């Protein structure tokens, strides 16, 4: 065990129950019925009286200087109520889709039609569409101060010694593509002014952060801004503020004197609302004859678009005692990256894990045994050595053949594995809890449920703490008028919010007991919580003992039980109303997991069918086994897309995206999704840790390794499309 691993902490007063009644069970999303019946209103669904529809004026060019712009025809177009141009002649644009103005019209179609009436003249300038174009010595300088920026440079140990100790080396260039977030609900908002006050319904991962962003961007007091996100259709790291479309929406709404809805379309999403940067790595790595890694030397680069970074962790997880790495950010004329589901990790994982399989082959070791030999020491936040054998069992790893399926015929089977890690520790959420005399419980917290099930697990913790059922608790979230909670990113929401739920509900329970004790005629320490009841015992009891043991002791003749309703009735006209917040001792950080893939490759068509993914993943104390599992499903599907399907394709001559849709920007459909076997490892002693990002990290590498195991050819580049796979197979000696 690693001695420096964070010691499991326990909250002195509101520790997690030892024998929970609800926590750790499978509870379906409480808003599931609302969502499947269409009654849940997403930002996209909000309709306000007199509402107009906004569209953004955008650059059609990747790199150009404005000569002139004339919007008079658009201004007079049918239905147009307000128009704003934010660019002036001489200004430059640096990526296709760059915002240069906005308008609002009575219908969506009128707004879209009016956009086309704006006459814009450009000086089209040479654009950089690929990292190769940008890195050429003769490339035009498009970015200030340069087209590239030297990033991190690291060195540890002694490379010469490392390579001297190597019996084998592998050298190669690995790469990953640009992936866009492609949230089902696009970015955007509805802005409504009431005098100087702005109410905005925004598809965001941070209601409080978005309020701050509106105020700063519009130069108005934060007190004048309210941001609401009741239901949200995914952000994956790309939705942390009002964004430029939020500011433009607020401005045209003000100019038009009417509420304006401005939701982006799919094309705008792909072009301008973020992406996962590409990654390239020229690697040389060494392994000793006994299978111990000795050295790793890499130059890496990648592009996060126009002026944005592209760094990622490398080498990932496994211990290379001697290593060196330099990274360069390369800029091209495309929309900028944003944080995307475990920023950097899938890239670093892919490069390292494919390399690991190649190195394992050099020393003729089973790839899993090879990994076990080179893992960091076992610790609560580094459990791979335990999880690999667990996953191997579920995927039937012993059936694995060595690289290259010897079975005749076009269909080749293969297995692969990989590992992931993440932090997932949060803090800082605040909440307010009210218990009414009719027994109703309302918990308010300015967090947001971005589709993860946050609302459901909040209700579970509150219900657990108050001895109630999940449907007896009302959760109110997604409003910046509620107590502050941080944005939902870095898989921190559960770890930030669940402690606040536990503490605030615990305080509300204590307050309730204090209020009713005089009326029950007993000291407060003789009141405890049952299940749907309040227990009054004659002996002194620990008021915080868990519900089940309380319920058991409730049967003792020395106590009586009062129903929750009757107990609350004693509150009279004044509810219990308490504030609480995240406190130490209920959450932690540092998760680990492994994944295995079982694939089938048709070597005559280049098409990969993923048959099964096994995922072994921990996330501390599991609150809802069901929603935790669905986070794994979602992550794995996105990792599978990364492995074979998704790719932002830019026309190499103009830097315009050719597939800004969901037709040629391929994503797995139902029939492409394999059996997914999730094993959640519960670590109740660690408290709550987030799980949103980690399951998305390892899938692509596991799939790539399984394809390599099936076909015997090494693909150092994703996505593994029929195009790439057939080309590689052909190079390896044809398929017929």
């Amino acid at each position, binding site marked *: 065990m690693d001695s420096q691993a964070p010691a499991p902490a326990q909250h002195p007063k509101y520790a997690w129950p030892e024998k929970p009644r609800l926590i750790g069970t499978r509870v379906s999303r409480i808003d599931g019925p609302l969502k499947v019946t269409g009654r849940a209103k997403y930002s996209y669904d909000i309709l306000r009286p007199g509402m107009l529809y906004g569209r953004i004026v955008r650059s059609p060019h990747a790199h150009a200087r404005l000569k002139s712009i004339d919007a008079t025809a658009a201004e007079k177009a049918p239905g147009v109520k307000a128009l704003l141009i934010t660019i002036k002649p001489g200004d430059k644009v*640096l990526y296709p889709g*760059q915002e240069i103005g906005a308008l609002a019209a009575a219908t969506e179609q009128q707004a879209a039609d009016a956009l086309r009436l704006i006459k814009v003249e450009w000086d089209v300038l040479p654009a950089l569409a690929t990292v190769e174009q940008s890195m050429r010595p003769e490339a035009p300088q498009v*970015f200030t101060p340069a087209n590239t*920026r030297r*990033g991190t440079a690291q060195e540890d140990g002694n490379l010469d010694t490392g390579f001297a100790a190597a019996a084998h080396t592998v050298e190669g260039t690995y790469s990953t593509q640009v992936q866009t977030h492609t949230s089902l609900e696009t970015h955007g908002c509805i802005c409504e002014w009431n005098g100087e006050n702005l109410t905005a319904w925004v598809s965001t991962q941070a209601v409080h952060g978005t309020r701050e962003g509106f105020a700063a961007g519009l130069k108005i007091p934060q007190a004048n801004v309210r941001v609401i996100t009741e239901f949200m259709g995914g952000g994956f790291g790309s939705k942390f*503020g009002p964004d*430029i479309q939020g500011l433009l929406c607020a401005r045209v709404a003000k100019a038009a004197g009417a509420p304006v809805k401005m939701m982006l379309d799919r094309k705008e999403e792909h072009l301008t609302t973020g992406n996962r940067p590409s990654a390239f790595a020229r690697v040389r790595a060494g392994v000793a004859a006994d299978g111990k890694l000795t050295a790793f030397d890499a130059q890496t680069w990648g592009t996060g678009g126009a002026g*944005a970074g592209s760094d990622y962790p*490398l080498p990932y997880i496994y211990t290379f005692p001697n290593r060196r790495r330099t990274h360069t950010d390369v800029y091209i004329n495309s929309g900028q*990256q944003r944080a995307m589901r475990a920023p950097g990790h899938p890239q670093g994982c892919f490069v390292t894990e494919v390399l690991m399989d190649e190195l394992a082959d050099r020393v003729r070791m089973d790839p899993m045994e090879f990994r076990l030999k080179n893992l960091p020491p076992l610790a609560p936040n580094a459990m791979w050595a335990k999880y690999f054998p667990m996953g191997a069992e579920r995927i039937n790893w012993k059936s694995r053949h060595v690289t290259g399926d010897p079975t005749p015929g076009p269909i080749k089977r293969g297995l692969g594995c990989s590992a992931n890690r993440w932090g997932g520790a949060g803090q800082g959420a605040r909440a307010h809890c009210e218990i009414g005399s009719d027994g109703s419980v309302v918990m308010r917290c300015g967090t947001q449920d971005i589709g993860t099930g946050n609302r459901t697990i909040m209700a579970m913790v509150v219900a657990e703490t108050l001895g109630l059922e999940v449907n007896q608790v009302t959760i109110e979230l997604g409003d910046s008028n509620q107590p502050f909670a941080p944005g939902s990113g870095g898989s921190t929401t559960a770890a930030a919010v669940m402690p606040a739920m536990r503490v605030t509900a615990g305080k509300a329970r204590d307050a309730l007991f204090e209020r009713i004790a005089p009326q029950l005629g007993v000291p407060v320490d003789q009141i405890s919580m049952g299940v749907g009841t309040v227990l009054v015992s004659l002996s002194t009891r620990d008021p915080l003992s868990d519900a089940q043991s309380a319920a058991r002791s409730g049967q003792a003749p020395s106590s009586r039980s009062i129903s929750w309703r009757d107990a609350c009735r004693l509150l009279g006209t004044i509810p219990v109303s308490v504030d609480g917040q995240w406190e130490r001792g209920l959450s932690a950080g540092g998760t680990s997991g492994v994944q295995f893939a079982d694939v089938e490759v048709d070597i005559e068509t280049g098409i990969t069918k993923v048959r099964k993914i096994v995922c072994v993943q921990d996330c501390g104390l599991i609150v809802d086994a069901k929603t935790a599992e669905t986070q794994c499903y979602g992550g794995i599907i996105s990792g599978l897309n990364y492995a074979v399907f998704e790719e932002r394709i830019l026309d190499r001559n103009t830097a315009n995206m050719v597939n800004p849709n969901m037709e040629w920007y391929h994503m797995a459909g139902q029939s492409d999704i394999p059996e997914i076997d999730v094993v959640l490892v519960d670590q109740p002693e660690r408290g709550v840790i987030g799980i949103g990002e980690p399951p998305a990290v390892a899938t692509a590498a596991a799939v790539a390794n399984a394809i390599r195991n099936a076909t015997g050819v090494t693909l150092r580049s994703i996505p593994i499309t029929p195009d790439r796979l057939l080309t590689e197979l052909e190079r390896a000696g044809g398929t017929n």
Partner: protein
Amino acid sequence: MDIPKPASPLVNEHHCSNLRHKGMYVMSVPDPDEFKFYDRYDATHYWCTCTQKALGPDGLSVHPTTCQHGGERGCCE
């Protein structure tokens, strides 16, 4: 009482007060062990709060190396 603060490498007296990144809105607690599993790296996406995008009011890209007091950018506050 804990008063949690978001983790940010930006320095008030040094960097422009309009510079933003996700870590300023998400209050994660760094894992002290993290850099045992790989070396330090910077995957941060920056934006300007005035423009709410990755280009500043001057049309140039936003980054801590250029959004600094005493630098060349007139928009730095």
